[in-house]
């Protein structure tokens, strides 16, 4: 299985991967915290690395025989693809000529035209943010000159559609291995827009970003543990079934994680197995080498805009997803054999994920309840803070 690896700013991470020689790393991906187009993560999330660091990262990537993929995958550029074409071209030109990137990832088909027009040899990968979820959309991107597509999460367990796509197109694909994304998430589009705009240069004057959508997602998972099973992750043990139908490249996420965490994930997918808690390797959670502690109850007075990112203890869910149990239950077989598209039926008519969750997911009930209540208070307080902060913003 080929892997696409995130660059988290730690050169040592890439050195370890390079020196071990046991991983099939095809791509390393990364980006600056902010640029003219933006990406899939807010700048406040990224610890940031300087230009020299980025250049060294690209150099090590090439030394390990991989390509460096620079991300320009914000879904909305507020019309800069029409108004700032020159600036966009200049930025890409610098990355191609000076930094020697091999590929860009985009989510906007108008940007695809710009890249192909000015940089015909530069490879273009279409982001999952573009929500390519059908053969017809795949063929449109193929016609438009894209080289690779990361398919939309919501079809990862739709084996008939995945097969249909692979059999009828000649473009390269990758699937995201380890996101605990909610199936058909109602906040997904908004989430990508918020993160994308925050990572654009134009948005320097905004208030400190907070991950409103992630709060909702956490809350939903805390309320209903079967959401943890419905999440569109691919277990290391199940990757071979995707490879069998032609999906031989997995993208590991994400760029915000520490090196030790990422190495654990890379090893799991390289080895094709993971013993223990599956949420250790899913990027939505922070359970790897962490003890579960009691989730405190938040008070409204604890919340202020400056501290919002440090309130994680109040909304961090630490589930235990028993991966060994999922093996015993042959978890993926239902989806491999099933002809139904999960998008077209109510979960309450099927209940497969609910049944699996009852046997394999363990969540501390008191902590889960506190997460739900805390997040309600946090979300509502943010709106109040916006109203109150006018004098502070104007100062």
């Amino acid at each position: 299985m080929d892997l696409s690896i995130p660059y988290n700013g730690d050169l040592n991470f890439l050195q370890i991967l390079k020196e071990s020689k046991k991983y099939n790393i095809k791509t390393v991906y990364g980006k600056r915290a902010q640029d003219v187009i933006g990406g899939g993560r807010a700048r406040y999330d990224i610890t940031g690395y300087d230009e020299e660091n980025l250049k060294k990262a690209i150099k090590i990537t090439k030394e390990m025989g991989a390509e460096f993929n620079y991300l320009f995958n914000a879904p909305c550029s507020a019309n800069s693809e029409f108004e700032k074409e020159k600036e966009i071209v200049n930025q890409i030109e610098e990355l191609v000529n000076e930094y020697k990137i091999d590929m860009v990832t985009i989510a906007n088909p108008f940007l695809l035209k710009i890249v192909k027009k000015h940089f015909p040899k530069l490879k273009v990968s279409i982001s999952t943010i573009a929500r390519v979820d059908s053969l017809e959309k795949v063929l449109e991107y193929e016609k438009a000159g894209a080289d690779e597509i990361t398919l939309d999460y919501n079809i990862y367990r739709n084996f008939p559609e995945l097969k249909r796509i692979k059999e009828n197109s000649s473009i390269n694909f990758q699937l995201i291995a380890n996101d605990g994304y909610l199936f058909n998430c109602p906040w997904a589009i908004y989430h990508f827009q918020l993160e994308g705009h925050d990572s654009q240069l134009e948005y320097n004057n905004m208030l400190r970003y907070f991950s409103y959508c992630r709060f909702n997602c956490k809350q939903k998972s805390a309320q209903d543990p079967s959401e943890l099973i419905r999440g569109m992750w691919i277990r290391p043990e199940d990757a071979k079934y995707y490879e069998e139908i032609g999906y031989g490249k997995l993208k590991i996420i994400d760029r915000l994680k520490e090196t030790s965490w990422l190495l654990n994930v890379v090893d799991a997918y390289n080895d094709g197995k993971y013993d223990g808690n599956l949420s250790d390797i899913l990027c939505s959670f922070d359970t790897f080498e962490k003890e579960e502690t009691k989730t405190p109850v938040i008070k409204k007075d604890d919340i202020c805009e400056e501290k919002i990112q440090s309130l994680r203890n109040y909304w961090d869910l630490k589930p235990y997803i028993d991966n060994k149990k999922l093996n015993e239950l042959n978890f993926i077989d239902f989806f491999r054999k099933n002809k139904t598209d999960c998008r077209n039926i109510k979960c309450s008519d099927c209940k497969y994920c609910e049944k699996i969750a009852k046997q394999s997911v363990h969540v501390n009930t008191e902590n889960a309840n506190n997460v739900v209540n805390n997040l309600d208070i946090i979300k509502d307080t943010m709106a109040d803070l916006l109203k109150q902060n006018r004098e502070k913003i104007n100062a």
Partner: protein
Amino acid sequence: MNYFLDLIPSKTFIEELSKYNNQNNIILNIYIKQLPSMNINKFLYIDIKDYEKIIREVRKNDFKINIVFDTFCLGNKEFSIQGREILETLDKVMKEKPEFVTITNNFYYRYIKTHYENVKLICSEYTEINNVQKINRYLEDLESSGVKLDTLLLKDRKQMKYISSKFDKNNIYINVNKRGYKNNIYKDTLNNNIAHYIQKEEWENIEKLLTQYKKECEKQGQQMVELNQEDIDYLIGLGFNNLWYYDTENNPDKYLQDIQNFLEVKTLQIA
């Protein structure tokens, strides 16, 4: 049957339409400049300072109100000074107790839900409600009062039959005369672009964008999708009773005529 019709902000329009309000349950879609929407007809937008006056006229004729605040992207303004102004405008608008608000933005959705109890929140088609799972997410998980369905889904009779059996039809809203391209890779981008141009009031750029977009789609051989009369009849036959009829041509007299035809015989005037 409930009819959601765009309010053309003129006394004549309101009075003419009021003749139909006894036999039909008409809800007027109101577009406010300071609460961005996706409607590209700039003549529908009213300024917040004229809002109360218009609402008085609307209420005098016993119409219900739907505030359309369905912009696809606010560019993170919600967390800035402009966001505070939007909240103030929203509070002002909600004082008049509209019966419905149609919305896309999750942040304002939550704000309205927690601060205003008696309003029905409809999730707009820009939230991409194009399958059963999404309907479930919004109606059950987010406890929305209603969802407007994507046109592609409306054309899928098998799915619509399933939906009619699984969900309360009173919570499903149908765009009667909206069109779009099938499997279109430009859709999200176009919605983002339009949202930002409307907020900057760059109406001429919207025209240019739509021309370019149409050219791209036709070059790719994309198929236009819209409801025809048989589709409407089928959906009404299944029991769906919330119909939304847009003003697509910025021609008030024609719109009034089209509405009258539609209210009388449920017949579309297909251009």
